[in-house]
């Protein structure tokens, strides 16, 4: 049951290129969507037993031999698995129609599934080196996916992305090596225990700095963000949604905070550093987003800014902060996925993403305009949509922790956010219709369907957010909060 999150995507990915020869479209579409739908159901099914039993540790016997295939599924992991499966299912639904003009669907889906397998593995594994490995699985697939269009922009963006993240992950691995050298083990529990016995605050401090750089680059925290505004807009729309919605959160935010909470322990020092980084990201990226002309580039900068909020919430470590951070993670994953998919629709419909050229599309494509509005308002933090709650909780958590300066900055950044999302909405969808787009029609069925599903999720989670928070997010936040108590403090 738990292993299927890693094995099924890999298996399907292995078969797809072979089957792709037989059927170019139908079978890959059906197979991929079915696999992901199964994973979503799987994740939902796991909630009850998990809540009842706490962490699930699974070992597998291989032909009678005892081998070490250990996965640890706690509520935090399950929450991430659910987010990954849900958003990527919508993204593959969208791809059914969108990928028509790229061709080679089988390879595309296979890469996408390998990336999902990598993320799922990353989320499930309680071992430092394996975290690095699955990070690379997802990363290698994402390099290829960014360059999938093989145009000039795609190649340039993918190359820069690759070269920067290779350096970053080398530093993360170096840090893992040093920790391995000091404690002699790699699994979370053993390392945490070892570090507790050691009291090596300075070396651990440097190691954590390496982690912050390595995973911070994946999460696109300023100043490690430079690859993101190139890579995310250049990729095909579903991949942009995948990268912005999921990859930066799983291989960046999740990995960083899993290590921080379960291994090295969250200390006040770390909180300060991460709060500063998160806040800088929030503001710098929001300012940069305001100046963009390209729809997708604006969204990409907005991702950096929102990751800042998530990092701030999680870095606080208070129950409220964790709750807000995780909730915002989910909301941003869904809403940003929706917005990038919509940008794909807009590009599909009009052939351009330049905000100056667009305008007045709401009369022609009300569905795209409406869903886009939902996503934009959610991220901008407008009630009663989901994003409002998570942002409010984060800000309240900042105030509760007496971080008034950061709270103020977070508030001002949220006004900026509101501003540039209204800018998008106005320039692309409202206002007078550009003459060029007199003839445009609504996006094809599956593309619209995916957007509508995501928009409904945004609205439903916003309106009925209590049950959602209680089933998915509170347990995850509790896991992290317990992590704080268990793990050592390596510095005051």
């Amino acid at each position, binding site marked *: 049951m738990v292993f299927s999150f890693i094995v099924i995507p890999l298996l399907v990915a292995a078969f797809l290129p072979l089957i792709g020869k037989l059927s170019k479209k139908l079978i890959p579409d059906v197979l991929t969507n079915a696999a992901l739908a199964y994973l979503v159901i799987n994740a939902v099914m796991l909630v009850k037993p998990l809540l009842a039993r706490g962490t699930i540790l699974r070992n597998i016997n291989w032909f009678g031999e005892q081998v070490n*295939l250990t996965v640890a599924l706690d509520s935090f992991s399950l929450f991430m698995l659910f987010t990954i499966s849900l958003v990527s299912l919508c993204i593959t639904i969208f791809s059914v129609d969108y990928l028509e003009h790229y061709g080679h669907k089988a390879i595309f889906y296979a890469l996408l599934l*390998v990336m999902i397998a990598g993320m799922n593995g990353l989320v499930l594994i309680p071992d430092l080196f*394996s975290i690095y*490995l699955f990070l*690379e699985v997802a990363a290698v697939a994402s390099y290829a996916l960014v360059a999938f269009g093989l145009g000039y922009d795609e190649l340039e963006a993918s190359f820069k992305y690759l070269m920067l993240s290779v350096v970053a992950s080398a530093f993360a691995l170096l840090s893992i090596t040093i920790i391995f050298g000091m404690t*002699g083990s790699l699994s979370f529990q053993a390392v945490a225990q070892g570090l507790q016995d050691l009291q*090596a605050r*300075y070396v651990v401090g440097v190691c954590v700095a390496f982690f912050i750089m390595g995973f911070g680059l994946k999460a696109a925290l300023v100043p490690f963000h430079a690859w993101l505004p190139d890579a995310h807009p250049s990729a095909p729309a579903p991949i942009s949604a995948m990268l912005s919605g999921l990859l930066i959160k799983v291989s960046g935010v999740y990995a960083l905070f899993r290590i921080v909470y379960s291994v090295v322990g969250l200390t006040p020092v770390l909180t300060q550093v991460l709060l500063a980084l998160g806040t800088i990201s929030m503001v710098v990226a929001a300012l940069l987003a305001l100046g963009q002309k390209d729809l997708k580039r604006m969204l990409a900068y907005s991702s950096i800014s929102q990751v800042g909020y998530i990092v701030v919430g999680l870095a606080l470590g208070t129950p409220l902060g964790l709750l807000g951070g995780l909730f915002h993670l989910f909301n941003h994953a869904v809403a940003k996925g929706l917005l990038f998919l919509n940008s794909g629709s807009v590009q599909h419909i009009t052939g351009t993403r330049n905000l100056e050229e667009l305008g007045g599309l709401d009369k022609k494509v009300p569905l795209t305009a409406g869903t886009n509005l939902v996503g934009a308002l959610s991220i901008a933090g407008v009630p009663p949509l989901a994003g409002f709650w998570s942002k409010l909780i984060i800000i309240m958590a900042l105030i509760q922790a007496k971080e008034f300066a950061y709270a103020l900055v977070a508030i001002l950044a949220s006004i900026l956010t509101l501003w540039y999302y209204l800018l998008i909405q106005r320039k692309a969808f409202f206002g007078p219709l550009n003459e060029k787009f007199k003839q445009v029609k609504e996006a094809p069925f599956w593309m619209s369907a995916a957007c509508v599903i995501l928009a409904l999720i945004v609205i439903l989670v916003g309106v009925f957010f209590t049950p959602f928070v209680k089933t998915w997010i509170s347990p995850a936040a509790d896991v992290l909060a317990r992590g704080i108590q268990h793990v050592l403090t390596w510095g005051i």
Partner: protein
Amino acid sequence: MVIQIILLCGLVIFSGLAILLRDLIKAALSLAVASLFLGLIFFRLGAPYAGVFEISVVAGLITVLFALTIALTKKEDEVQENRLVKVIFPLFFILFLVIDGLVMKSLLTKVPALPSAPEGGSFGLVLWKQRTFDLVAQVGVIFAGVLAVLALFRKTGKDEEKDE
């Protein structure tokens, strides 16, 4: 011990050459030589399998890949590296050497480590029994790499239009 240090110095020198040599083929070859040295170091550290892998895969396969790429992208007007960069490299290198040495010296006794018991078993057992999940991940990485190459070298509609 002396041999080990000589090998390490060789590794660093050939790595340095790999970035300084003008001719890319020579650079790639000196990278291969550096890999060879690294493989030998692995042998002497008691990691023969890693050494073999380093020599066969990195010194062999990856060098071939590099050579192939260099051949495919050969052109008359090669990219000119800035001369100054190469001239001042030794300066920076020595500076870093000193800093590195000082840092390591100051760390010498400061970094605590848990006492480690010698591990039992064989390499195969460790790889298969302790790190089984790494094998799954390796499969994933290989998939990703193969599919990436497939995706990047596929024929696209645009290419065909251009050819015509």
